[in-house]
């Protein structure tokens, strides 16, 4: 007897069911990763405890986890705003860089001073990220050019543009020709707390989450975005300007991602340099997906991701495991989470052979 399955759409499960399924998938990933650890002669339970201890076991660990979560929250929000409307912004990575460039320009060359300089850097990053994404928004709204391709390819342009500035006109004149901009003045840096690297960018990220929540859930515009996302034709029939909405949503998405660039340069790097973002814009896509586009969800998933990334270092530090273990570990968790997402939305039903053909 051959086994045949049919994929069926599931009714939207309860919050409890979703939480259970997600937790089970994380446990499943830990279970499989445990065999990898065993094969390397490391006790999995001890390794997992060590990851948690590294990420949450001290003020320093917690602060680093929050620092890591900060750009993930902001970019996760940026991507999720567009996802609401079934618009796929794959370009958050480039928008981070553009935001960072905007903020850096203000910090180094505008001549502004405290207290104006930080708000101006924020605004420049917001505008730069937004303008960058608006190109894709315009192309999509006006000529139906696929925004996935445009935003993705514009990442490379943005990163190379930042490189050009770092290697060329913005290079620190006192930096022995090394490809770094000058460091920001104290006025252009976000405050740090508890003698750690935790900076006010984290609170900015929480504020962004609140703003996105209010915009999406409490305004007519947010409702329109959801309506257009679920059925564009119906929304247009109802008199909504779908083209304009697409343009604005992509622009807003890029502007928020630009804020992450501001937070990274003003809060953490204090200068613009190559490798500003180790792929936050791409991780944000996974975060937005797992968070089911909810602002609170983005915060939670980003914090979990922060624990994973910060704690992952301990595998190398404590056991001298190769870096590939950290990658494999993160990959397994994501794989299981995405699989659980599938089973939350769909079920497999056995198809009997003797059923009508």
């Amino acid at each position, binding site marked *: 007897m051959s086994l045949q399955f049919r994929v069926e759409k599931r009714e939207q499960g309860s919050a409890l069911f979703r939480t259970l399924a997600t937790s089970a998938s994380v446990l499943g990933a830990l279970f499989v990763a445990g065999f990898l650890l065993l094969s390397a002669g490391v006790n999995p339970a001890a390794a997992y405890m060590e990851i948690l201890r590294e990420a949450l076991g001290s003020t320093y660990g917690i602060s680093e986890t929050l620092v890591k979560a900060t750009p993930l929250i902001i970019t996760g929000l940026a991507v999720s705003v567009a996802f609401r409307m079934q618009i796929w912004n794959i370009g958050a990575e480039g928008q981070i860089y553009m935001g960072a460039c905007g903020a850096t320009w203000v910090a180094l060359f505008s001549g502004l001073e405290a207290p104006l300089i930080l708000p101006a850097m924020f605004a420049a990053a917001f505008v730069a990220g937004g303008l960058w994404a608006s190109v894709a928004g315009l192309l999509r709204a006006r000529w139906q050019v696929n925004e996935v391709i445009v935003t993705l390819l514009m990442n490379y342009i943005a990163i190379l543009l930042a490189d050009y500035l770092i290697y060329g006109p913005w290079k620190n004149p006192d930096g*022995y*020709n090394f490809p770094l901009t000058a460091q920001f003045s104290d006025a252009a840096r976000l405050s740090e707390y508890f003698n750690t690297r935790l900076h006010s960018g984290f609170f900015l990220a929480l504020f962004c989450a609140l703003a996105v929540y209010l915009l999406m859930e409490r305004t007519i515009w947010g409702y329109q975005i959801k309506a257009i996302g679920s059925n564009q034709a119906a929304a247009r029939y109802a008199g909504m300007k779908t083209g304009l909405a697409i343009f604005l949503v992509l622009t807003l998405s890029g502007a928020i991602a630009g804020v992450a660039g501001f937070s990274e340069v003003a809060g953490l*790097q204090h200068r613009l340099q*190559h490798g*500003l973002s180790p792929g936050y814009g791409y991780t944000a896509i996974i975060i937005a997906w797992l968070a089911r586009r909810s602002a609170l969800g983005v915060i939670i998933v980003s914090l979990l991701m922060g624990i994973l990334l910060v704690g992952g270092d301990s595998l190398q530090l*404590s056991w001298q495991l190769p870096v590939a273990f950290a990658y494999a570990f993160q990959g397994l968790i994501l794989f299981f989470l995405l699989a659980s997402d599938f089973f939350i939305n769909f079920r497999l039903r056995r198809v009997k052979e003797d059923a009508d053909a």
Partner: protein
Amino acid sequence: MKKLLALLTMLALFTAGCTNEQKPVEPAAKATAQPAAAKQIKAGFIYVGPVGDAGWTWSHDQGRIEMEKAAYVAPSTYIESVPEGAESARVINGLVQKGHNLIFTTSFGYMDATLDVASKNKDVIFMHCSGYKSAENVGTYFGRMYEPRYLSGIIAGKMTKTNSIGYVAAFPIPEVIRGINAFTLGVRSVNPQAVVKVVWTQTWFDPGVERDAADSLLDVGADVLTMHQDAPATLQAAEARNAYVIGYNSDNRKFAPNAFLTAPIWNWGSIYTKTAEEVQNGTWKTAQIWSGMKEDLVQLAPLSEKVPAAVKQLVEEKRKAIVAGSLHPFSGPLKDQTGKEAVAAGVTLDDGALLGMNWFVEGVQGTIPQ
């Protein structure tokens, strides 16, 4: 379903039974067990690439292993593939938290992070490779790689038949530019017709990108390649197309048994052992170390049998002259790419000019972003 459950149960039992006694390294306990006189050096290393890159990171790790031979050096720790920039501060701090008292950060992009962590941990000694910032407890170290680069250029100039030599280069920073210039000066010292074509990859370690760059240079007629990269892709490209190749970082001839001529290589063990000894004696003081072939920090790997005896002899003479200090690759007169005199006759570029080098000598085909 029952079978599946049984299987899972077995797996779980198996997992439980397999736990072994390996525990996280606890250096603090070890340190207290030692008498105070024999201070243990607990060293930590931050690497930019994977240890298995067969290049830059591998050469540092060889140095680390050599350092561990000293009696007072406890087993050391390394963290590989650490991103440059702010990210690295957390990893460096992790080494401090684990009780390491001597930390080597082995890539330029760790400069700010190293100084940042060092300013908060004055009792730990830091050594940053290839940067220009130091502090009371942060020293810098680097090698005059341009010396063996110059020698390898002599070989390339003698071996090329098309007078076209390809250079796969990572980033347009002074370190890389200095290497390209020294190499080109070596080439032109024996073959004034030859040109050196430069392709930037914008990466230290990306075998795919490096391979494409190497292939593109072979496509435009280069018959000798060299590189400033951490992966061995350029060697493999030359081997596949019957060209010659000069490696870098380590003696990586096994990747190109037929194409390999030589490689300018690092010998980090000398500096790591010396630093550990100084820290142990309490004689360590912050310094900006820039050693060359004389101090044995940089070397030229043994030449392959493809290099004619006459060329071998010439290279050996020049090597002796460099070690003796009678030959400096950057002695005038030197012309820049446009043919304009850049260094007058009788003048030798000083270390400041070398460290900030931002122009190409005559014979280089390529551009530096300005």
